[in-house]
């Protein structure tokens, strides 16, 4: 191997990498979380805006607008109609109560589907995580009515439900068998504790307290944008591979 070759190679690659690779991956290292829940996140945003003095109705409504169609498809027209009316009346307490009712419906929705896809470890786990994100959002609104012990119990119930899903293990180490009955029992405990607390919410008819009774026009995990990300990544990888191959061939022809 001669030195000039070596030097050119280093130079070339350094430029290539500095120019192409790094800006793209800058910031990729972060504590991102895949288990946030859109309905819950927008609720936090809207609650913050409405809590201001004076309430920021424009921002709150915009947040609601972001997820309105999703709410309609998951929970039916009655729910969005009630919320539209609450927004139109600019009744802060009614909007927040409605939205909490929606969160309870969402908790039920995530639990129901998690139970349905129980054998699909990955999906069930994701759905359970989304249920938990929903629960964590409701938590501050529960502390005044529920004891610290009860809250701790609910936290533990989520842990137990997660463990009840089993675990494939890492390279087979740490494999755990699933326990569907325990899972059902734990999510029922959580739902039965949480849902009555928000019974008064939503003008009476939002959170019905019946597990599994919510309208279900969509299969689980319908957040298509998430699936698309995976597809996009796959496509980019394939395109890059093809491009590299073509470049390689053209170089070979020339030399």
């Amino acid at each position: 191997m001669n030195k000039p070759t070596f030097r050119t190679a280093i130079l070339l690659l350094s430029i290539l990498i500095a120019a192409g690779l790094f800006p793209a991956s800058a910031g990729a290292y972060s504590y991102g979380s895949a288990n946030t829940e859109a309905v819950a996140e927008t609720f936090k945003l809207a609650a913050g805006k409405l809590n201001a003095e004076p309430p920021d109705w424009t921002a709150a409504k915009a947040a609601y607008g972001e997820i309105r169609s999703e709410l309609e498809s998951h929970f039916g027209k009655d729910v969005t109609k009630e919320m539209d009316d609450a927004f139109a009346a600019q009744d802060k307490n009614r909007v927040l109560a409605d939205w909490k009712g929606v969160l309870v419906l969402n908790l039920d929705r995530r639990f129901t589907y998690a139970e349905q896809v129980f054998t699909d470890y990955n999906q069930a786990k994701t759905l359970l995580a989304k249920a938990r994100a929903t629960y964590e959002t409701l938590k501050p609104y529960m502390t005044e009515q529920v004891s610290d012990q009860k809250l701790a119990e609910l936290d533990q119930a989520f842990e137990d439900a997660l463990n009840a899903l089993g675990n494939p293990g890492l390279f087979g180490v740490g494999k755990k068998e699933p326990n569907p009955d325990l899972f059902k029992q734990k999510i029922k405990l959580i739902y039965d504790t949480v849902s009555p607390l928000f019974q008064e919410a939503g003008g009476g008819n939002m959170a019905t307290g019946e597990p599994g009774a919510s309208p279900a026009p969509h299969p689980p995990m319908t957040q298509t944008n998430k699936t698309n990300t995976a597809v996009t990544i796959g496509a980019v990888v394939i395109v890059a591979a093809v491009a590299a191959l073509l470049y390689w061939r053209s170089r070979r022809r020339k030399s």
Partner: protein
Amino acid sequence: MPGKRSQIGWAAAVVLGLAYAVFGAYHLSPWAAAWDEVDFVLALDRFDLLAMQPHAPGYPYFILGGRLMRFITEDPVRALGLWNLLLVCSSAYPIYRIARRWTAPVYACLAVALTLTLPMNWTLAVRPMSEGAALAILWWYLWTLVRVCEKGTGGRWLAAAFMFGLLMGTRLSYAPFGLGLLLVWILAWREREVSLRLRYSRAILWAGAAAAFQLLWVAGLAAAEGGIRGTMVLMAGFGEGHFTQWGGGVAQSGLPFRERFVRFVADNWLWSGMSAQSALLAVMAGLLAIAALVMYGKKKSRAVAHPKRREQMLTAAGLIAACALAYAVWALLGQNIAKPRHAAPLASLTIFALGVWAVRSRTRTVTALAVLFAAGQTAIGAHLVMLQHDQWPAVYQLADRLKDHPAPRTVVYTWEEERVLRYLNVPVQTVPIFTYEYFMADIAAQPSSRILLTGSVWEEFRRQSGLPESKVRLVGVFRSDPRLDPVYGTIPLYEWNREQ
């Protein structure tokens, strides 16, 4: 040079190595005091990327090693530390082998000592962070890389590709070191003396082998998450960086480039990474470098190496330097600058290079200085490792205080400390928060709760909405050595004042 003197030398080296291992084993850090450390520790009981135990991209070999160590110690924190220590001790061999490219055995041993006792890296070698294991594997990888570059046989390539697979499965952020593998691959392709057919088949087989070793850990990860598709969705979710503002800590990613550069090179790499913020070590390192430089200038007739050996040296140096440069650029631009440990591989390579280069001047003064330097560094490093073992990290002190006051309906708003507090099972509600508006809505919902906030939260709230000092009352300040707990080495705790 077989002889009595050399035998004594070897015995001394082995004794020192054993002492290093035993000292480390008795000073394994008992703390999981940072977000990442808690992630790793929890992963030993249940591997679950979604629950961030550990966080993406999974570090599967590191976790596997930790699980293996649990046959020796039940404590997951010490198990991970022990795995790190074991690998770091083993890395003495590749460091020695690489140093032998330039110097005689005794000096190569000195280079090993200098590299392994670098204070900040030494603390990493005994705490539950993946850097300890990754640094060790990095040295193994660099050695196999130099070997395959010197003589491109299939076996040597396999070894290097295997080591790179181990490295990536232990810490993906060391990926830029893969540049070395790529360079060797390209150079092998350009070897004109070999027939085209052989070059073709070699290029394909080698690339295939390297890819297969990467696929191994990726597949293991996917299986642990219950499927490729789900894992990819998960990774994409992490990549979106929803919590980017959190990782930043004091130094936001929005830092101007010049300041970022200065902080990375001067602070993270040299002052913290190399000298552990000790003026004495910085001065000694400077003296050693200057003395070596002077000696090189004085001595016109250095021992001239054989041309073939000279090329060997240049190859190894160039290859490692190229890798280090690639990593430096990546760490500067892509890594969280608030955490000096991201510069650890650079510090490790720098001290190694300084040591080897200095002793190659072959003068008594420089050698004496190098030995003195190694001794000083060992003393300061050992002291830091003991401090890490004994001192309660600030966040543990905070958790302890919260246990002391189990007032009903207390809510603590925090940043990244939340992860540790939950892990320690503090008997109060802990909530991670970033946005002031969310906080206001939250506390409005619970009028009878006692509200506490940590310093980072309070500072951020003040930045967001210019609150007066009177909104809070200082409850306490918890401190530990900022070198061991960067970002969260000082944690003030405030109580929120509702009336004001």
